[in-house]
């Protein structure tokens, strides 16, 4: 959305090169007439000469298609969001000259959003990092790759020697391919630390934890395409129209098929504009809202009792909690009147199957895991899970956040959610063909530390410090850390920093003497390179975008797609995996790390990496998606039905597009993939599934296994536990295994049998390898076994804190002291009365360095801004377009001492989109700090075209009680005219 009133005012355009303000933007008649006088006057434009435009205007010759030259077509997948739109690139002589719609793709049918339509610009990338650079006395110096790897490697070895391997925070990326992100995790493992993470932490970590602990896997259960079949859609804290635009194609088709759409959001978003019902909600009251809905559902007996009996455990305990959420209480806490709640509940009850969609609005809270579980419980109560048109359709963020979460750099697990216990390391040591003891000794074995539950463990078995807290890894007193020493080095490969909270403290951390080394491996310098006044010890490594390499990527619906390489790496950039190989070589573990991965000319073979993933990731069924099968799916993608994603005829008849995981067993059993999770209406061999038996067989005398519910064709006509070798023997199915399988499977289970035989045989008999259990509404290991409402740490309703307080402070949580009650002990709402939330714009993505450097996208969103309600604006004398200061409250705690609030200078957009008492900013901007444009700190010609304040300069402390997700969707601020 542009910064303009209803009656379109002229935008003041920013010239991309000079930084001057140049008029001449979208000419509508009114503005044209106003300016035509000026143009004729000429002199009036002094100081804003558009001459510079002539030079900066992209010469049509640079990457223009030429007649008579052979044009090649290559197919990739967009690098921007998890929908996974196909991208067709036209290339002439290695230059990317055009894009075509990939209408054969069943996922986007040729469609794109602004970002997808702009990816060709990656092929020229004027603002890209071109060569490695080092910051020396505040100036960027060009260096060679060899020199860079040497310096960085030496420094890392020095730090390792002095402080141990845990002193490096290596942040990987959700934008790396499956192979790239898997190598990032492997790199950290071979370096000897779990201090590795990626964007999922601050995006859907609470989803994965909450959902996986409810019914087995923490991913989107159905797909965007399946939404054609919904009868209702409850969209909470998700703005698909701006964050997943092409998903709206499927949502609107569902709407045209009759689906009723309800949007619940503090803002009247573009998605809400297409809804049947819009509900404005107080930020941070999400669990209360869901319980308020369930109150009506239970009150009227609308729940699906038979479904609950067969497939759900613990609903009665939920009933107990929901009883407290009568309409009056709910209205007090959420702001939603009874009649709106009732109408919503009724719509959902009367229109089944229905789906629930949630995104950051539900996840980014310190009680995020409560919200996500409440969402699941709502769907279980309605009987909406495990069928077409239903499910929990969680829209993931970055293009490969799903893949990176599944097999990539997570601090709390090895690839495939195996965890970090000894058994998990032994499994992967076998897959990697390295000696377990050798691997173990890569870690700090000098002593054990508090693992967060009061017991002692080695750091090898303790979750690392997540990306939401890396600054505390530097600032915190090392005696309080569950590792030897602070961070002395950080390396960010493909991750921005302006998406993490507490920007003021981040600057302090970057300027701290403790931080000896900063390495940025990215196509662009990012906000990290300029936000602090660091003078030395910083390296920039030009890294390729996903279009300059190839590999597989996993979309939100769990489908894997194969990307072809479109162009050669630009300038001196290198792909993630090559950089990791070079570093690993310098650090001395490349031989072990790439033991079964062929390396040619410093390039690890991507296919070999995927095959290694296939050999080891049995838990979530990443075993059947071999490179060959994925390439075939790309080739014959036009044969897949666009609602069911099933191939109808053609060479892949019966398979599901992208072999959505779990794709069980080895590639040769040719499992078709599982399009809808937990759907018992099909045999497991054809993509059917049941709830995973993950939490035990019984609890308090009640069976946790499914009762009278099983998938079609199942030989066990009831619930059953997960499959082990012993269980196969008991069932008399052991001899179905061939000899090689028997050798591998002996004494193992469906997750650790590297032959895949146990899985194959279980499926042969119609059973799911992971068991058949009930979903559980009570997660007894979590701080709140049944989800409850707790006020945000920074709340405008301080009167509610007494009844709904936050947690007690924790001494050691993910290796760090983590505060709750001591932050909430102060009432900030007097001086900071506005609720401050942030979110996405269509044109930009993530930290924004890449998209704000794209000339076509930059033109569409030229200013950082804050949306403020007309009433709040009038109270402060603010008019549309005014510059304002947005001040954050900081933190007033005794430990670790108070911090001042950050402040950002932005333009005000006065709009009724936000309710009274709430302000909203986009989070994509960077390159400014507290009113100062940092353009001069960028290496020459790499400053993004559009720069602005990072909203997180002003955000605050607050972390989820299970995953350390940051609380960005409910904090406070004050706004005043600048």
């Amino acid at each position, binding site marked *: 959305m542009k910064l303009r009133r209803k009656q379109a005012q002229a935008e003041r355009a920013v010239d991309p090169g000079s930084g001057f303000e140049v008029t001449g933007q979208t000419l509508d008649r009114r503005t044209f007439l106003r300016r035509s006088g000026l143009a004729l006057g000429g002199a009036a434009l002094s100081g804003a000469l558009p001459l510079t435009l002539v030079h900066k205007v992209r010469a049509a010759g640079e990457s223009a298609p030429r007649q008579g030259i052979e044009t090649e077509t290559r197919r990739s997948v967009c690098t921007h969001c998890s929908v996974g739109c196909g991208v067709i690139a036209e290339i002439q002589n290695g230059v990317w000259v055009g894009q075509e719609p990939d*209408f054969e793709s069943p996922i986007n049918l040729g469609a794109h959003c602004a970002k997808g339509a702009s990816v060709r610009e990656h092929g020229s990338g004027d603002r890209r990092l071109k060569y490695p650079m080092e910051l020396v006395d505040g100036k960027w110096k060009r260096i060679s790759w060899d020199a860079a790897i040497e310096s960085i490697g030496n420094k890392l070895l020095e730090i390792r020697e002095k402080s141990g391997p845990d002193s490096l925070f290596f942040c990987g990326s959700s934008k790396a391919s499956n192979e790239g992100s898997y190598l990032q995790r492997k790199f950290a493992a071979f370096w000897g630390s779990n201090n590795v993470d990626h964007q999922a932490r601050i995006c859907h970590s609470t989803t994965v934890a909450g959902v996986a602990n409810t019914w087995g896997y923490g991913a989107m259960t159905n797909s965007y395409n399946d939404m054609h079949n919904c009868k209702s859609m409850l969209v909470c804290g998700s703005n698909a129209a701006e964050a997943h635009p092409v998903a709206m194609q499927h949502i609107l088709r569902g709407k045209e098929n009759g689906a009723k759409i309800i949007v619940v959001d503090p803002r009247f978003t573009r998605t809400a504009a297409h809804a049947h019902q819009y509900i404005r909600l107080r930020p941070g009251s999400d669990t209360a809202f869901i319980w308020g809905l369930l109150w009506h559902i239970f009150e009227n007996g609308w729940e699906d009792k038979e479904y609950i009996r067969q497939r759900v455990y613990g609903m009665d305990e939920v009933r107990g909690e929901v009883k407290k959420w009568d309409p009056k209480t709910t209205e007090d806490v959420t702001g939603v009147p009874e009649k709106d709640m009732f109408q919503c509940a009724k719509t959902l009850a009367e229109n089944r199957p229905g789906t629930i969609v949630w995104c950051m609005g539900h996840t980014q809270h310190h009680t995020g895991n409560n919200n996500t579980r409440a969402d699941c419980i709502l769907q279980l109560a309605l009987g909406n899970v495990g069928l077409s048109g239903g499910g929990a359709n969680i829209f993931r963020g970055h293009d490969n956040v799903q893949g990176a979460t599944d097999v990539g750099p997570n601090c709390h697990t090895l690839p495939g959610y195996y965890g970090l216990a000894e058994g998990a390391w032994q499994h992967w040591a076998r897959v990697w063909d390295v000696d377990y003891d050798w691997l173990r000794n890569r870690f700090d074995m000098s002593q054990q530390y508090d693992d967060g539950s009061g017991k002692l463990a080695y750091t090898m078995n303790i979750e690392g410090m997540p990306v939401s807290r890396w600054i505390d890894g530097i600032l915190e007193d090392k005696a309080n850390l569950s590792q030897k020493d602070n961070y002395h080095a950080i390396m960010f490969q493909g991750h921005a920093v302006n998406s993490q909270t507490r920007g003021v403290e981040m600057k302090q951390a970057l300027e701290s003497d403790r931080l000896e080394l900063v390495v940025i491996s990215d196509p662009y310098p990012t906000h990290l390179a300029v936000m602090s006044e660091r003078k030395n010890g910083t390296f920039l490594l030009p890294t390729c975008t996903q279009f300059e390499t190839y590999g597989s990527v996993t979309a939100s619906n769990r489908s894997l797609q194969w990307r072809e390489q479109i162009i050669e790496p630009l300038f001196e950039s290198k792909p993630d995996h090559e950089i990791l190989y070079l570093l690993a070589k310098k650090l001395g573990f490349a031989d072990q790390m790439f033991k079964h991965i062929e390396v040619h000319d410093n390039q690890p073979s991507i296919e070999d990496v995927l095959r290694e993933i296939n050999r080891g990731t049995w838990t979530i069924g990443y075993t059947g998606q071999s490179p060959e099968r994925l390439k075939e799916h790309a080739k014959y993608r036009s044969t897949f039905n666009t609602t069911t994603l099933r191939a109808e005829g053609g060479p892949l008849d019966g398979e599901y597009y992208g072999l959505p995981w779990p794709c069980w067993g080895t590639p040769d059993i040719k499992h078709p993939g599982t399009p809808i999770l937990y759907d018992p209406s099909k045999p497991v061999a054809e993509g059917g599934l049941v709830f995973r038996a993950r939490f035990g067989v019984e609890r308090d005398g009640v069976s946790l296994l499914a009762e009278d519910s099983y998938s079609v064709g199942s030989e066990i006509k009831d619930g059953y536990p997960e499959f082990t070798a012993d269980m196969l023997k008991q069932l008399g199915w052991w001899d179905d295994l061939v000899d090689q399988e028997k050798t591998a499977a002996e004494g193992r289970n469906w997750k650790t049998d590297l032959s895949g035989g146990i899985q194959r045989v279980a499926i042969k008999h119609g059973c799911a390898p992971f068991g058949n259990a009930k979903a559980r509404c009570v997660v007894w290991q979590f701080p709140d076994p049944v989800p409850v409402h707790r006020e945000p740490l920074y709340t405008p309703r301080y009167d509610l804190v007494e009844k709904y307080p936050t947690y007690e402070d924790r001494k050691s949580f993910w290796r760090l002291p983590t505060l709750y009650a001591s932050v909430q002990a102060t009432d900030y709402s007097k001086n900071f009365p506005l609720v401050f939330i942030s979110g996405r714009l269509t044109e930009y993505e993530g930290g924004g360095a890449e998209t704000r450097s794209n000339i076509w996208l930059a033109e569409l969103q030229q200013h950082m801004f804050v949306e403020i309600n007309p009433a709040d604006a009038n109270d402060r004398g603010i008019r549309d377009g005014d510059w304002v200061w947005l001040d954050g409250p900081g933190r007033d705690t005794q430990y670790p001492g108070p911090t001042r609030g950050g402040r950002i200078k932005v333009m005000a957009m006065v709009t009724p989109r936000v309710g009274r008492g709430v302000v909203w900013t986009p989070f994509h901007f960077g390159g400014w700090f507290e009113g100062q444009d940092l353009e001069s700190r960028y290496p020459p010609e790499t400053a993004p075209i559009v720069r602005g304040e990072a909203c997180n300069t002003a955000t605050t402390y607050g972390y989820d009680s299970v995953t350390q997700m940051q609380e960005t969707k409910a904090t406070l601020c004050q706004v005043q005219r600048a």
Partner: protein
Amino acid sequence: MNSRKGLWMALPAIALFLTGCYDEPKATFFEPGEYQGRPDPLVSLEASAQQQQKLQERLKTVQMDR
């Protein structure tokens, strides 16, 4: 009766007078003129039924919900 007769006599006179009020329309009509530029090969291409068929197919393949 006289007034009636007078009216009937005056009528042709009035009519005659009114003819003076008739004017050739003074507005100048501008018709779009003949195009003065170079010929565009696309023009003849677009006139062909084959091309129209091709574009129709393309529309159905790419832009319809399938």
